[in-house]
Each structure stands twice: as C-alpha cells, then as structure tokens.
C-alpha cells in the first residue's frame, strides 16, 4: 500500500462521495421513500465533507511528495473494438494544479450553500428535489473539474447543464421559470453541440480524448500541445463557443438574468459562482492549444474583452440586486477569459476562485441590500451619493443607456436572426414534405398541426359510456 495506492484511493473517494449522494437521493426518490429533511441534510453534509477532506488529503500528499500530476484511471466505460470501428469512453481523473483548487472550491461553496439551503428551504415542497439536483450538480462539478479526458469532461459538463436548467425551473407551477429553464437548456444544448464536435475532432487528431496525450507530457500549465496546424484553431474555436455558452458570454448572455428564477441559494452558487466559471475552466484546461495558435489567442482575448465591457455597461443600469450581480459576474468572467487569452493562467485561476467566493457571499446576502444601505446611510450621515446626475445629453450616452437597458438586444437578436430563420426554414421543409406526400398519396394537403396554444380547450361533453 504505497503512495500510488493512496493517491488512487483518495482520488476515487473524491469522485465517489458525490456519486454516492446522487445514488442515495436518486434511489430514494425512485423508490418513493421519504426522508426527513434532517436525514437528507446530514447525507449531503457528509458527502461534501468526505469529498472535501479527501481532496485536501490529495493536495497535502501532492505537496509532500512534490507530485504535480496524479492520474486516476477508472477504465473504459464503453469499449467497442471492431475492425474499422474503434470507440471507447475512457473515464479518467487527473489531479493537478488546476483541478485540485477548483475541486476544493466546488466542495467548499457547495457545502456552504448546502448548509444555507437546508434551513432556507425548510418545509418547502421541493426540498428533496432541490437536494437531488444539488447532488447532481455537485457530481457534475467534481467530475468536470477532475476530468482527465475530454469525454469525462463532457459527462460532468452535461450533468451541470441538466441540473442547472432544472433548478432554474424549480418553481414549475409558474410559467416564467419553466420557460426560462427551457431557454437555458436550449443554449446549453447549442454549446454542447460545439463541445461534442470539438471532442470528436480531438479524438480524430490525437486518437484519444486524454488531455495528457493532447496537451503533451508536462503538468498543467506547462504542457505543450502535441497537435498542430490549422485544425487546432478550429478545435479551439469550437471549445471557445462551448465555453461562451456555459459562461454566458456574448452573445449568449441573455440566459444569465433568466437563471435567477430559482431559489436564492441555487442562483448564488450555480450561476453566480460555479457554473459560470466552468467555461473559463475549460479554456484553462485546454490552454496549451492557445500557445500553439495565436489566432485562437486573439479570439479568446476578443471574446473576453467584449463580454467584460458588455457586462460592465449592462450592470450599470440594473435596478434589482440579482440582475446587477449576474452582469457583474459576467464582467469578471470576461476579464478572466482575457487573462487566459493573455497567458496569465495562474492569475486567472486565483481570480476565478476569489470571484466565485465573493459573488456567492454577495448573492446569499442579496436580500440584505436594503438594510445594508440604511446602515451605510446612517454611518455616512446622509443619503448615499446620488448616481451620476441625469443623463440628458449627448445622444450617445442615451444610446448607451438604451443599449444597457435592453441588455444589448442580445436575446432579441438571437431570436430574430438565428431562431426565426431557422424555424422558417423548417416550416418550409415541412410544407414541402406535406405537398410531396399528398402528391404521392393523392390525399389533400394536410394543414400543419396548430401549436398547442392555438388549440381551444376541449369542451365536448362527457361521452356516453356504456
């Protein structure tokens, strides 16, 4: 039982503890059992504490033994070996300078928010649902931060996306949250598609999805990419799109305010703190690609810059606490992306961690804003300094205000220039197909089914039952 065994063991514990939590809470729901709130809270607490301790232990061992790269192999989940067809889904986790801090951060923030939620959601109907989704989210975060292969990362990434969308739609009796949850889900799927394409291309280029193989032998961040050429740029660009979707960067920023529909704790940890940084984490993970392709670097810088400026402008006009914080987060995520683009990987990592904790605290304390303000006003001895006096002239300042007020028209533009043509094309195909089939079958052209909203409620009487 030497050092490698302990590394392997502890590494597995880190992943297994949230996985066990998901299994327990999920099975319980599946079997229709009811746990006391306190039982669920205790389970959650122990899973987080065990995971946190194990990851701290791994960190301690890495520091003691000076190891900078600890791979933990779990084996292949799927392996298809046939002639001419070679597919495998390789589960592998890596502990290094990037993943360990991020994992610890995930555990700490999720732990705090779990404790917060267990009293905040006390007696709520959705208590157990919340904690199940919370467990899925935690597992997703841990898996994606520790992922050693791109397919493992994708797996965790999907869990995070799924749980986030469902948590946004937590209050499913009101239409707003459900609609917004769906919208977020759509944007996630879009960025997932980019991610999947990138993963396929990487497999194609390197023959495997392992980051070590792709990014060279050195431990993070010193690895050098083993692949080269223009394909790196395209892979990188796809990954950038994936990251942008996940982190709500321009042009996907429209989902950020929508994500605030859930209960305060989930908005705090998921969108304000962890989930929003997952995109930048992905960029950090594949950072060696940036070193190979300067064009890609410029794209990353540009993306970061645009998002940061956008966030900074838009957050200026927000009049409610959660929106203001959401866009403020976006500003910082943009800056972190710029730091990554500039090659300041350590600074980006520190910035990410600091920003995540600070934002969690601010979001959890969001309802106190009014009281804090009163305290400040009492301390200062007068009203807080008024914001810039009224904007009247020049016209560009008004335009800027309008831009911020309309949140940069991002959602409207997506709807108008992407979604609408897309839908229209498919409507066109649909009508072609109907004409086709009617011509072939000789039947009259069927009208497309009306949307459910257009259908009046059925009002036929109870049928005769014999």
């Amino acid at each position, binding site marked *: 039982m030497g050092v490698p065994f302990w590394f392997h063991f502890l590494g597995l514990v880190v992943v297994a503890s949230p996985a066990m939590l998901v299994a327990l809470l999920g099975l319980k729901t599946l079997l229709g059992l009811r746990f006391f709130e306190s039982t669920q809270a205790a389970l959650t607490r122990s899973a987080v504490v065990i995971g946190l301790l194990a990851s701290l232990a791994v960190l301690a061992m890495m520091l003691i033994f000076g190891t900078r790269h600890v791979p933990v192999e779990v084996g292949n989940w799927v392996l298809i070996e046939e002639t001419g067809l070679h597919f495998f889904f390789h589960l592998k986790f890596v502990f290094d300078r990037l993943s360990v801090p991020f994992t610890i951060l995930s555990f700490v923030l999720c732990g705090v928010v779990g404790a917060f939620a267990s009293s905040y959601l006390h007696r709520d109907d959705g208590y157990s649902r919340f904690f199940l989704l919370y467990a899925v989210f935690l597992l997703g975060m841990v898996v994606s931060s520790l992922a050693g292969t791109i397919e493992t990362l994708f797996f965790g990434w999907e869990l995070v996306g799924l749980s986030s969308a469902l948590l946004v739609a937590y209050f499913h009796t009101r239409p707003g949250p459900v609609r917004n949850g769906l919208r977020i889900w759509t944007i996630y799927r879009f960025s997932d598609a980019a991610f999947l394409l990138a993963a396929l291309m990487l497999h194609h280029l390197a023959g495997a999805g392992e980051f070590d193989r792709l990014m060279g032998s050195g431990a993070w961040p010193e690895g050098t990419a083993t692949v080269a050429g223009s394909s790196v740029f395209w892979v990188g660009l796809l990954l950038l799109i994936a990251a942008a979707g996940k982190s709500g960067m321009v042009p996907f920023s429209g989902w950020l305010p929508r994500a605030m529909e859930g209960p305060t704790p989930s908005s705090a940890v998921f969108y304000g703190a962890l989930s929003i940084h997952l995109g930048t984490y992905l960029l950090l993970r594949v950072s060696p690609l940036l070193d190979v392709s300067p064009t890609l670097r410029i794209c990353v810088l540009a993306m970061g810059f645009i998002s940061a*400026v956008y966030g900074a402008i838009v957050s200026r006009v927000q009049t409610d606490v959660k929106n203001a914080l959401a866009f403020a987060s976006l500003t910082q995520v943009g800056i972190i992306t710029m730091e990554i683009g500039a090659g300041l990987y350590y600074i980006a990592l520190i910035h990410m961690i*600091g920003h995540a904790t600070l934002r969690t605290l601010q979001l959890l304390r969001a309802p106190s804003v009014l009281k804090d303000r009163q305290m400040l006003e009492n301390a200062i001895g007068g009203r807080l300094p008024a*914001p810039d006096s009224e904007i009247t002239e020049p016209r560009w300042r008004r335009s800027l205000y309008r831009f911020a007020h309309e949140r940069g028209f991002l959602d409207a533009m997506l709807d108008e220039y992407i979604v609408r043509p897309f839908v229209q094309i498919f409507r066109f195909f649909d009508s072609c197909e109907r004409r086709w089939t009617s011509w072939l079958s000789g039947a009259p052209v069927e009208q497309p089914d009306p949307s459910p909203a257009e259908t009046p409620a059925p009002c036929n009487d109870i049928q005769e039952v*014999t």
Partner: protein
Amino acid sequence: MAGIGTLIAYQLKPKNSAPSLPVSLGCRHGWPRPRTSDQPVNTVSTLTSHSTSVESTALSSQIKQLVEEAAHLLPSQGPIEVFVHHNTLHALEDLPFHEAVIRGAKQFGGQPYLSEQTFHKYLEAGRITLDDLQTVLRQDLGEAGQQRIAGLSTREELRLSMLQHLIQAGSAAELQWIIAETDTLKRFRTDVAESEREQLIEGALNWLQSPAAADPQFASLFSSYESLKRGGSSSKREEFALALLWQLCRNGVKTSAGSSATQCPLRPRDLVHSAYGFDSDRDVHGELIRLSSAYLDQGYADWPLPDRSKGLLAAFIELHADRKFQPTRWLRTLAAELERIRHQKISAEASVVESLEALGVAEENRVEVITQTLLSLRGWAGMIWQLEQSPRNAVRPVPAGSLCEFLAIQLLLEKASLTAFAEERSGRNTSLLQMLTDGAAKLETRCRESQGQHAFSLFQIAQIRGWPADEMAALDRTQWDELNAEIDAFTLTERQRIFQEAFELGFRQPALNALSFAFRNRQQETTESVEASAKRARPAFQITTCIDDREESFRRHLEEVHPHCETYGAAGFFAVAMNYRGAAESFYKPLCPAVVTPQHFVQEDVGYTFQGVHKTRAELRRRLGRAGHSFQWRSRTLLGGIAAGIVGSLATAPLVAQVLFPHLTSRLQRRFGSFLQPPPVTTLQLERYAETPGPENGGIGYSLDEMADVVVRLLEDLGLTQTEQFSRLFIMCGHGSSSLNNPHESAYCCGACAGKRGGPNARAFAMMANDWRVRRLIAERGIELPEDTFFLGAYHNTCDDSVVFYDLDRLPASHHADFDAARNDIETARQRNAHERCRRFESVPTTVTPLEALRHVEARAQDIAQARPEYNHATNALCVVGRRDWSRGLYLDRRAFLTTYDPSVDDEQHSILLRILSAAIPVCAGINLEYYFSKVDHTVYGAGSKLPHNLAALLGVMEGTSSDLRTGLYQQMVEIHEPLRMTFVIETTREAMLSIMQRVPAIGRLCLGEWVHLAVIEPADRNCFVFRNGQFEPHAFAGEQLPTAKSSADWYRHQRHDLPFCLVKEGKTN
C-alpha cells in the same frame, strides 16, 4: 334595540354604491364593433389626435378620473422599508365581507376562501365539526331549510350532504377520464353508508319490476341487467343500481334546460389569449417591468433613467423614439408611433384614448378595460401610484400623473404586440380589429358548460343521500328542474362560505365560552373577597406592553413567574407620536401609527461627557461606511471587480462563518463592532424650548403641557387613575424585531409604530412620566402618582426575545432592589416565552429546555439562511379589550391581541373606549385580514414563496428577475396561520358599542360588514352578546368549565398545533 337595528340596517344598505368599483358586466353582443366595416384600420397611421381642444380636455380629465378609480383597486403597499399591515381588500371594504371576497375573486382573480379540499381536511381532523356546519346552515337558511326538494330531501339535508362529502368536479375532460378510467360507475362511493346502499339497490330492483323499465330509452340497460330480476351477485346489483342512477341523472339533467350565458372578455389581451392562445402580456410586461423599475429606482442603479424627471412617458419616448435599430419584431412600429406622439404633443390621456379606440374598446367598457389592464401588472402600477400619492415615503418620489403615463405606455405596447401578432398570424391584410372581431366570434361558438358535469354531481349526491331509483324515475319535469336549480344554487363559493363560517364558529364558540367563564369566575372571586382585595398589597411591579398578540405569551409567562406583578396592554407607541432620530442615525423616522402624521421631533443625544468619543466614532463609522460602500459598488464594476475578485478568496471567511456559525459570528461582530456603536450613555432630547415643534435644535421635543397630555391619555387608557393602583416600579415595554437577510423585516416590527421598533416610545414615555413637573401637571387633572413610583423604558425584541432597559443610570438607589427582582422575573419569562414559541418551529425538538430555546431563537435572528425568523402575527384570531384581571390566567396561545380598558373609569360618552377602539379595531383587523388573504391565496393576494425573492428598485420584491412586484405576506410567514376573521371581545355595554359604531365610520363599516366578529361582555350582568346581522344576540353560554393546567408549559408541551383554551392556575393573584 329595534331603533338601533333599523339604523344599522340603513347603514348597511348602500353597499352597491361603492364609488370606486367598476362593475364588470359581460358584453352580450358581438365584440368589438369597428365603427365602419370598411375603414382601413392601420393603427399607426389613421388615428389622429382629437380635433378640438375643449373636447380633448374633457376627455383627458375623464381618463384621469378613470385611472384614479382604477388606482383604488391597486395594492396599497408602499415601499417595503415601511411595511404597514392593512386589509388587502381595503378597496372593497364598503361591501360586506362575503360579497367583497367574491367581488375580489372576480376583480383580482384571488381565491375568496380556503379551498374546499382544505376545509375537508379540517373536517376530517375534527377542526370543523358537523354540528357547527349544521348550526351555520340553519342560521343561513332559516325557514327555507326545511323545504323538501323534489320530495327527496330537505334543503338543509341536501346541503349538509354536499358539505360533508366532497363532490368530485372538474373539467369535462377530467370527468371523462374519471368515468372511463375509474370504477365510479360500478362501485358506490366509499363514503356511502350501508343503509343508503341498501336503499339504492332496493330502489333499483323495484324499478326493474316497474313498468317504467320498459321505456325504450332504457332498453340497453334493461337487457343487460334483466337477469337481476331472478337474483344476482351483490356486485352485479351494485353495478346495476349505479348504472341506472347515472342514466337517470343524465336524463334528468338533459331535459332540464339550464344555460348560462358566456361572458366574452373585455380586455383585448384576454380576448386574444382565450381565442388564440397568444399572451401579449408576456411581451408587454417584460418591457414594462424593466421600464418601471428603472423609473422608480430609489438609487440602486448607477445610471438613472434619462429624463426621469420629465415623467414616465417622456422618458419612454426619449428612449425609443427615432431609433432605427430594433431587432425585436413586435416593437418595430413603436419608434414611429412614439415619434408621432412626441411630434404632435399628444398627452398621456389622449394616447390612452387613441389606444383604446385602436383596440376597439367601446366607450362604456373603458373603465373596466383600464382597471383590468392596470391590474394585470398591479404591483408596479400600485407602487407608482403610492409614490405619486405619498411622496414623503420615498427618497425619490415620482411626479403626479405617472400612473396615467404608465397606462398609456402599457396600452401602446399592448397595441404593438397584438398588431404584430395579427400580422404574424395571417399576413399583413388582417387588421388588429378584424382579428379581435373574429376572436370574439370564435369564443361565442364555444360550447357552454357541459351538462355531464351537472349529471355527475347529481349522481354523487343521489348516492350519498341514498335516493332510490324508483323514486327518482318518478320525478316530473318541474321536480327535476327544482332539483337541478337547487344543486346549482349551492355553488362552490357558497359551500366555502358555509365552511368558513363553521370554521370560525369552531374557534369563536370556545373562545367566547372561555372568556365568559373567566369573566364570571373572576367576578365571583372579586365579590367574595371584596375585603381582601381592598387590602391587597401593592403589585410587585407593573409592565405595559404593546397589545400585540406576540406579547400575550410574554405577559402570561411574566404573570406566572411572579403572581404579584400586573401587566397592561396599550398600542405600542404609548401615545407618544413622534419623529425620532437615534444617535447613530441620519434621519428622523415617524414612530406612530401610519395614519398619524407626527408633529413632534425627538432625538437621541449622547451624554455631554461622551461627545468627543461620539464624534470620533461617528467619523470612523463614516469612513468605514464610505469604504464599505465603495467596495460593494466597485466589486460590481470592471476594474474594481478585478481587484475585488483577486482578493475575493478572503470572502470565504465571512461566508463560511455567517452560514455555518451564525451565532458565533454575530457575537464576534458585536464585540468588535462595539467601538463603532454610539457610547453607552445617551439621553433623549425630550423637552422643547421653542414655541413650535421642528426638527432643529430648539424645536425638538414636547412642551410640559404636551407631555402631561400624553401621560394622562395613556394612564386613562390603562384605567390607572388612583394613586393606590401604582407599584414602585412601572415598566413601559416597546417592541420590535430584528432579523437578517429579510427585506420584509419591517412587517415584523411594531404595527403601532408604522413598522418600526417601539423602544424609543417607551423610553420617552417613561421620561415624561418621571418628570416631577409633569407629575404636578397631571395631579392637577386628578391623577396623583405616588412619589415612589418610577417609570422605566424597555424594549422587547420579539424575534430573539431579548429585553433591554433604558436609562438605568437614572434609577434611584432605592429602586435597585425592585429592579433586580423584576429583571430576574423578566429573564425567566423571556426564556419561557422563547420556549413556547419554539413549539411552533418544526426544526426545534419539543424537548428543549427554556434556556436552549432562548439560544435557539437568538441564533434564528442572526441566521442569514433563516426564512422564518419568527412567526410574527400568524395564528392571530382574537382581540380582547378589557381589564386584565379577568382575562389573566387564560391560556390564549399567542392568538390574542390584549388591550387594557377599564369601563369603570370611562365617562358617559365612552370617550376612552372610543379612542382605544379607533386605533385597535382598524389596526388589528388590518393585520388579521392581511393574514387572511395572504393565506387563502398566496399567489394573488400574498407575495408567493420567499425563496426566489429579489429586491427591486429598493422598493419591493420580485420573484426572479422579471416579475410583478409582490405585495402582501409571503408563504413562509403565513404557513401556520388559520385564516379566521378576528373576534373582538370588548368589556362594555351593547349600547356603548352601537354608539361607537355610529360615531366612528371605520369601526362601523368593519363590524357591520362582518369583516370582523364582535362580541361584548357586559360588566354589570356579566352576559356575553354576539353582534350578528346588525344586532346583538345573547351568546349561549351554559357555564362550561375550562380545563386547568399547572402552567402554560404543561399545557403546550410536545404540542405543535393550535391548542384549546385553558386556565393556568399559577397565574392567579393572591
């Protein structure tokens, strides 16, 4: 008596003349009516502003008036910082309660009562009894209850069955499913009694033998079950009985003509929504919420809305007019439209008229459409109206006329959205008006309420009543009609109303019994031992608290701890209506009921010795405050955020500490924060030197005469006019509440201090009453205070149950022992109080000790994750106005407001009672009714769940980031509340009460309209009378004994639910 009865009946009459109530009447004909059918109605270009200016002014003022009328229906909650409880349906208060809730359901879409299912749960649990239901039904029906319906049952029996058994109902599709997928038509309902089952089967078999069975319409039924004539299994017979019953019911309903006219919605959005499923409010509200929030913002956003000072419409025009770029499709027509409005200088009112015409709203429907339109976003509209009306409540008020502009914008957006939808739907050739007309026609053709639903109800009732089939088959047409009409008449709302009355009776009856018992009991004791009471020793100490229901338990425990103390209840501002500014505060805040505008100003001063320290600390606070503010602010900006982000990891410490160790954190904060607080010794600047009151130096305070007025008034209210009544130590105890992360904190504080903390009022009163010059003045008015009576101000925090005392330095040495003793008692009482409160918190085991309970409530107040720092007024249901000596010892379960009033010191005109009740009835009823409505419908009347609340514009809360402002109380606050109207029990005569009802319209309206229940206990003959239908009726009290308990804790231990009344023995004096 009769004379008064008629007088009251007269007052009740004009219920339909409520001025601010647009009555909604459905249109009966086609909708809408374009003026000429071939007129091209492109909404943007063809509408011109009204020609003559005279006409337009008249129109403008008409629209203004309509908007004002509609505004009365908007929620009247102001900025959340100052949360004042009030009747949610205040606008409908002129109507009797039951009419108002139904009108409310129509107008606001809120539930009038708890759901029938909930009432059934109460019925099963025994909280509502059949007896009570029957009593209420009898009262409600009177003679008519004994009438037989179609010869089958009496009306009362029929209705009772419909109450007792939940009749399944639902949409046609739902019933279809029930019939097809369950064995409803094969097996009896499980709640059909054995005897009824036999009756039903027997009746069915009789029918089979009868000639009626040969009727061809029953042919299929007859052929499948004919074999039963020769006998068959019981299940087969059951099946037959039900199949026959079902067919009979269907036939009976089918032939009985009953049609209800459908109402087509007046509001264009509603019409389009129900006809085409398109909801323009989704588009419109998204825009409008952002706009209103920016307009109303009290300083949260860094950039204010441009041209805010010019008004909402102007700001909106400046924002959107003349803009080429507009990706949002439905908003594309808007820029030109706004440009036109700006160019032609069209006023908001004129624009409203234009839009209404473009939307095809007929002139007679304007009121209703305007009302419904505003109500669709009632939170924001209401807030605009509030800031417009009472600008002093806000830092940045809005100019008058804003609501009208809001409406104009809402209609402009609605028009744009609907026009875009009309185009989208069927190309450019369909105009908006055309679509609306088509939609109305489409709705007309929709079928009416299905007869199957009727038949199904009847089918279930027949089972429950056990109506034999042969008798039903013999019913003729008129009898069927009668039966159907009867069942129709007892609608869901009617059933709920009866349930509600029975629900209240189930509380009121025991409450009145308990109070009558206590009253007689006490009176007997007093008469038996007149001698003893005359010689009774002075009380150990006296304490006056607010009348608040949360102080009931505190007082009770105090009396249990020290049987020789006396407690009093008075409205928590203690007659000191003032603007107050603390030593560490920047602004004056009114500390008095919200309806009063205080004239006086009082300020807390730091002792002269501490001036220097105070200045340094104030400066330090100022610097730290500035630094804190700029950190908070900059952390949201671009560059500041980088710095904040890099050092952000440091936030882990406060984050973990505040969430995981709230109690420890707050202790640390207090220890290290003490050097920031004002110095420990402060005093109130209470005496005025200048002639008139004002906020500046000389004007601060009261003159001696005014102080004497205050003191006399309160002592009279408390019935303390004799020298021998006073103890050596008289504590005045204000109250308030503190909790973290709670925008609604103000709702937890003292209602009599406008949602603020009432400590300073108690402190001020004590200082006034201690002043020997004031004492001399009040002695002249006949109240001579003993020289050794010392008044002490205190403050009770109802959330963490702490009690602090003011100005202890002024306590004479002679009183130290008295104070120490009293403080010990208070210490024990507050622990017990915390213990009693903890029984309601599910997260606390019922086995905690009082000390643990106290620690728990302290932690609760400091926990940022706590959604229920305390349960506030939840469960309130009773208000007792009278001397404490008889209500003392009653366990009232924190459900009662207790106001002290001594009828023996009152004058002929009952002027003391009048002034007590003028405050107590409206305030308590306001609290009670707000709880009622928030509980029965927490989505429409309440603020929904607290979990997604998001503070917007520093004025209120939204759900998520784009919703209406939520008013009322949130779900977590009212979850344990039983929505009962408050019962006032007043120790006075019937005549006095009737005269007060006449003299104070607010009281008369509430009592006559049955918004509250009223009962009096006559001090002379000790009888209790209940006010019903405009007159007092004797309360039937048969001398029921109350159970007794050794202590409060004995009674409530290990119980979480509402408890019955009992007599706590320890609480008895002597």
